[in-house]
């Protein structure tokens, strides 16, 4: 815990904001491309499914490789790959799954680059990766909305190009010359005495369950595009605020409080937008906490630790491609039960809150 003022003005927090912008631009581009390509064809099922698998699951292996070769600028390489893929989509005539693989490789590399830079520069704080991660929610909804218009590809591609200077500057924060073990030594959020493999497994389960829960949240109020925008704004804000509050008031305290408080707001907010948005913001706050848990037991490989969380996110989404439950009662039971499981899992794995070196 470092206090709210220090959490908001933390050393090297600029790395988080730079990758917030890169992440935002990246998701705008990716969701614009994927939504445009889906259209109304038979590809609409497999295309987003393939995107989720190809972009998010390989991040653990890419992260591990980037841990081994820290001077490699994954963010820049990924950004360039995404630009190439979007130009190919815009030009047309290329096999669309081939282009999708390039787009996803770029997405995965840039995610890993963001994780490496923000974790290695944070000195054990969560606000840096939390700010980076939050940019994605804003980008997803912006890209989705833009894809519904007649806008051509080039303005979105230009927007992605504008992120290139940030990938170069942010790399300076990575401290590539120093060992990850040394840079991540202040990440000590796992409960002492719990085997590292158990921490990783439980963290994986928490992320997967919460990812699945995200699609079960009852939201009858969400009927317009503006409502969707507000939903993603609440999600993005919650992710960033969760990391900042965890630094200020303690990881365990924020993880438990946000999980417990989110439940009544989510259930009672089925038809009341403001109440629901508060619940969703609280619900999103644990994002960086599970990442910090992973890094705590994999200090020498922060990229690999990050990759576990993105793989878990994908695992949580997979059932949604097959079954979607629309009953308020059933969803309420699922959300309540899974929240209890996640809280128990967090109690079992997150260590006591201590001061961290700012």
């Amino acid at each position: 815990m470092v206090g709210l003022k220090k959490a908001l003005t933390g050393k090297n927090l600029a790395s988080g904001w730079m990758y917030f912008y890169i992440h935002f631009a990246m998701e705008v581009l990716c969701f614009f491309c994927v939504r445009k390509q889906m259209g109304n064809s038979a590809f609409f099922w497999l295309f987003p499914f393939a995107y989720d698998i190809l972009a998010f699951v390989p991040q653990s292996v890419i992260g591990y490789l980037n841990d081994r070769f820290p001077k490699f600028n994954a963010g820049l390489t990924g950004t360039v790959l995404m630009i190439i893929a979007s130009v190919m989509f815009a030009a047309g005539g290329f096999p669309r799954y081939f282009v999708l693989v390039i787009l996803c490789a770029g997405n995965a590399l840039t995610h890993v680059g963001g994780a490496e830079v923000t974790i290695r520069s944070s000195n054990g704080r969560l606000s840096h990766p939390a700010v980076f991660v939050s940019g994605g929610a804003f980008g997803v909804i912006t890209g989705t909305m833009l894809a519904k218009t007649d806008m051509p590809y080039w303005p979105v591609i230009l927007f992605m190009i504008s992120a290139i200077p940030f990938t170069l500057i942010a790399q300076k924060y990575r401290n590539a010359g120093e060992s990850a073990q040394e840079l991540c030594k202040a990440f000590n959020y796992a409960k002492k005495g719990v085997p590292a493999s158990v921490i990783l497994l439980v963290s994986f389960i928490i992320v997967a369950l919460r990812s699945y829960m995200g699609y079960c949240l009852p939201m009858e109020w969400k009927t317009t595009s503006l409502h969707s925008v507000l939903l993603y704004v609440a999600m993005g804000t919650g992710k960033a605020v969760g990391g900042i509050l965890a630094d200020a008031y303690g990881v365990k305290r924020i993880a438990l409080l946000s999980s417990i408080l989110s439940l009544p707001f989510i259930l009672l907010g089925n038809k009341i937008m403001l109440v629901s948005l508060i619940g969703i913001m609280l619900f999103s706050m644990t994002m960086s906490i599970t990442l910090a848990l992973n890094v705590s037991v994999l200090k020498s490989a922060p990229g690999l630790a990050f990759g576990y969380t993105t793989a878990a996110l994908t695992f949580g989404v997979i059932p949604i491609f097959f079954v979607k439950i629309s009953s308020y009662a059933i969803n309420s039971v699922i959300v309540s039960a899974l929240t209890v499981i996640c809280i128990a899992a967090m109690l079992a794995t997150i260590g006591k809150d201590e001061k961290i070196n700012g």
Partner: protein
Amino acid sequence: MDKISYVMNSLLWGQVKTGFAVLMVLTAVIIILSVIFTAREFKKAGRTDDAQEPAADNGGVSDSDNTD
């Protein structure tokens, strides 16, 4: 009938099942590789599965030690 049910109940499912299988195999390979890499990292850190390394000594650092 929603879009998902439409795909699942129609011939379109036949068109996507190969792609689905390929993606699942890829996922399995990546997860196995991740577990191997993790085990290697644990081993390198001198950490066995049931002996997590003690927390680093940063608990005594006060706010006044911050450099920012």
